[in-house]
């Protein structure tokens, strides 16, 4: 507290009728305000020459240990639920939803072909992959970004997580059925071209051509600002 405040206090004892009334008025204004209140907005309601900063300090102190605190937002003040009670204002609702066909397909490709890049997924599927669908799979906890392929554009490589194994009751990723088993169950037809293969999935360590992700790498394309033509020229 600076000298001026001390002076003001000396003139106006801490708990004088006037100071107490100012405190109540400021309290009411802060409570009713639709957005954080600039102290000067309170001036017309307070006694002449009221020490705004001091009043705000006293209120802050008063609510310090309460369920609501007086907090400073920029130059303005507002009452807000105490931080440790923030959970009171959050409710969680879980909704069970079947995975979309696109998401299932992408997840299946990631499972078999991992580590796999987005453009490789697109090669297998023949259609573009929306980032949203990958996000859903990552949100579900079944797919993760493994690293970045050491190739032009350094694309992110995707793979499955231990939760994926859990979800589908697999002991290891290698338990995914191979070509012959898929044929055996009738999921793949018998008449496949001779060069048709099903890869052996691997959800373990990084491959030689993969770099680890930096901690702050959010998986965005590194070269989104360049057109494909630029890429072709560059490499």
């Amino acid at each position, binding site marked *: 507290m600076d000298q001026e405040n001390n002076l003001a206090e000396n003139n106006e004892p801490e708990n004088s009728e006037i100071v107490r009334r100012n405190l109540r008025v400021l309290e009411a204004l802060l409570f009713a305000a639709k957005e954080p209140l600039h102290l000067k907005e309170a001036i017309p309601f307070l006694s002449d020459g009221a020490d705004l900063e001091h009043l705000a300090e006293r209120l802050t102190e008063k609510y310090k240990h309460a369920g609501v605190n007086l907090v400073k937002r920029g130059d303005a003040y507002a009452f807000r639920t105490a931080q440790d009670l923030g959970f009171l204002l959050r409710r969680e609702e879980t*909704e069970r939803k079947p995975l979309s066909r696109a998401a*299932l397909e992408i*997840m*299946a490709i990631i499972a078999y072909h991992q580590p796999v890049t987005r453009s490789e997924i697109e090669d297998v599927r023949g259609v573009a992959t929306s980032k949203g669908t990958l996000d859903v799979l990552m949100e579900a906890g079944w797919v993760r970004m493994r690293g970045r392929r050491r190739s032009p554009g350094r694309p992110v490589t995707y793979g499955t997580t231990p939760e994926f194994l859990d979800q589908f009751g697999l002991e290891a990723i290698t338990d995914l059925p191979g070509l012959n088993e898929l044929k055996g169950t009738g*999921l793949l037809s018998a008449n496949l071209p001779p060069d048709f293969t099903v890869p052996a999935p691997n959800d373990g360590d990084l491959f030689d051509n993969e770099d680890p992700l930096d901690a702050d790498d959010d998986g965005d394309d590194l070269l989104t600002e360049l057109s494909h033509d630029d890429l072709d020229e560059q490499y």
Partner: protein
Amino acid sequence: MVQNADQADFMQDVLPKMRGEGIMYVDVKGYEGPLDLLLDLARKQKVDLANISVLALAEQYLSFIDTIRERRIEVAADYLVMAAWLTYLKSRLMVPHEDDTDEPTGEEMAALLQFRLKRLEAMRDCAAKLMGRPQLGREIFSRGDPEAVVTDRKNVWEATYFDLLRAYATQRERQIPAEYAPTQRTVWSLQDAEDILRRLIGEGADWIPLHACLSKYIDLPEERTTALASSFTASLEMVRQGTLELRQTQAFGPLLLRRKRGL
């Protein structure tokens, strides 16, 4: 007619609002029906409603209605019903009460009117008292910036192992380049068939089964259908031309042909 000074003032207040061409209704602006008008008249008596002269009030009301009717202002039905009731009340009040009727006495009727006036006035006071209270949003305020409860929607995704494998298999199969080569088929033209048939039956006069005579010309089984169809059609044409005879001894039996005799 009794017309005290207050009422004269009152007429001055009200009537100008009602002047106009032709007929208009007196659901007079500012009056909420006959009871409201009566209450206003009663207040002009400047006494407590409990001590009001109901007789005087009835007369004031009736004279008011008469006045506006004289001015060819049509009065809304509600007001006329009240006027009729008040006329009756007046007569009951002035004629001595007969004990043996079930009709309410004039005093009872007057008390009822007083009650209704008092009740209406009381409700108006109540409304005023309510509106005079500090009101939410005017003098009393709720939290201006309420902190909304945020609902975190969490999706639990469902997928089965079978869904997963089927999704993989289906799309892998979808991407197998389908090798489509249209099969080149030998088609016998009708002319070809006719030439062949002519050679077959030759000069002989015996019946020959059609399929038997074709078989030596046909190497590939795929060609059998087209050969049969073309030669059958050709044979019919030759029958029409009178160069060939056709015979089938039973349904689905062998088709026999021979050169037409006498040619």
